[in-house]
């Protein structure tokens, strides 16, 4: 067999999960954006055009996706701010675990507020 590469034992620490979440959320948002712009462009057909699409978004699956997208947006934002602080503000070893926790927590809170508001 081929020699196994560096595996999951090298991952699984906080910094790595923060990266994974940042990457997954970033790719998801990037793929979602063209769709988002297209939906908004339906307003070119007036309010009726946009309403037709918005009606489709009333389905529970779509509602759930919206909450996920808000979570992705919020977590990508907070994670990104953490990175900007590390890269431009300087590194303090003791701040790192807290920074990741704060980033994750703030984003989750934001998504929860959005989800609860939907009802």
């Amino acid at each position, binding site marked *: 067999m081929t*020699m196994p590469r560096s595996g999951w034992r*090298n991952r699984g620490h906080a910094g790595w999960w923060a*990266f994974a979440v940042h990457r997954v959320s970033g790719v998801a948002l990037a793929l979602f954006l063209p769709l988002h712009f297209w939906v908004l462009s339906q307003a070119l057909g007036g309010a009726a055009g946009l309403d037709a699409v918005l009606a489709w978004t009333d389905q529970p699956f779509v509602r759930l996706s919206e909450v996920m997208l808000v979570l992705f947006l919020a977590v990508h934002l907070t994670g990104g701010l953490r990175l900007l602080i*590390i890269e431009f503000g*300087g*590194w303090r070893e003791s701040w*790192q675990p807290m920074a990741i926790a704060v980033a994750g927590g703030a984003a989750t809170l934001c998504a929860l507020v959005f989800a609860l508001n939907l009802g």
Partner: protein
Amino acid sequence: MTQQTDPHRPATLSVRVWRGSGEGAYAVYDVPRRPSQTVLDVVTHIQRQIDPTLAYRYACRVGMCGSCAMTVNGRARWTCRTHVEAVAADDALTIGPLAHLPVIRDLVTDMREFFDKWARAKGAFVPAATHALTSSPSPMSAAGPSQGANCTPSGGSPAARAASVGAHTAGRGEKKSGAPAPRIAMDDFVRIDPASKARRAADAAIECIGCGICYASCDVVAWNRAYLGPAALNRAWTLHNDPRDGARTERLAAIAGDAGCHACHTHQSCTERCPKKLAPTASIAGLKRAVAQALVSGELA
């Protein structure tokens, strides 16, 4: 004499060891347990008592040289400082070569790519100035031959070297009349404040012994073949913070871009795994800042 550390644990350890190169398989060996046994002890026992064809590297055995770095239960570690008790909780031990490097045989990897990238990151000190010859009167002309012998410049033109030899020779005999002998300009030592920001930054990263554990732990090294890696960039950062170094601009150009510091995604696996408790993540973030400043100032063309 085999002594049990814990009478309830089995007397032997079942150890899987990678045999082969890029292609191969794990072989299983039974190794007697001993108190305070390290993974290096285990590998050594296999090679000396069971299978002499096993290839592995070690040198100091005491956590100073980094030669014994291997993958132990999926993580890169110094095997001489990894106690079996700490990693083989369920009596299972899997030992393989360091990841992300070509395997020569068994547990031995080809480290050339690791050190080539170190060189490509300009990870070597380049003096900012060399000693120059001046033509002022030399107190050295009255000095004995032994003092003269220390003053020959290593660089310079053959004429300059001949002139210094001439100065040396002139020192041995009586003073010659006419033009004073050329002397070496002896500078003061460069004064570096150990508490300065730059020196503290360099000191925080200077203890790297090039063991390769960070390189083996970094996913970006696996995903981006050109990536210089945490160790090379960490070393570049220490030199960037050394005011005696003269290759600052070239080094910034060497470590910037897709293969350099900008490829780091702050996974922090390097910082997690470094046995010297260094933080290459911090060094690389520092390099990013330095490059940003150089972009704005025009230093990075």
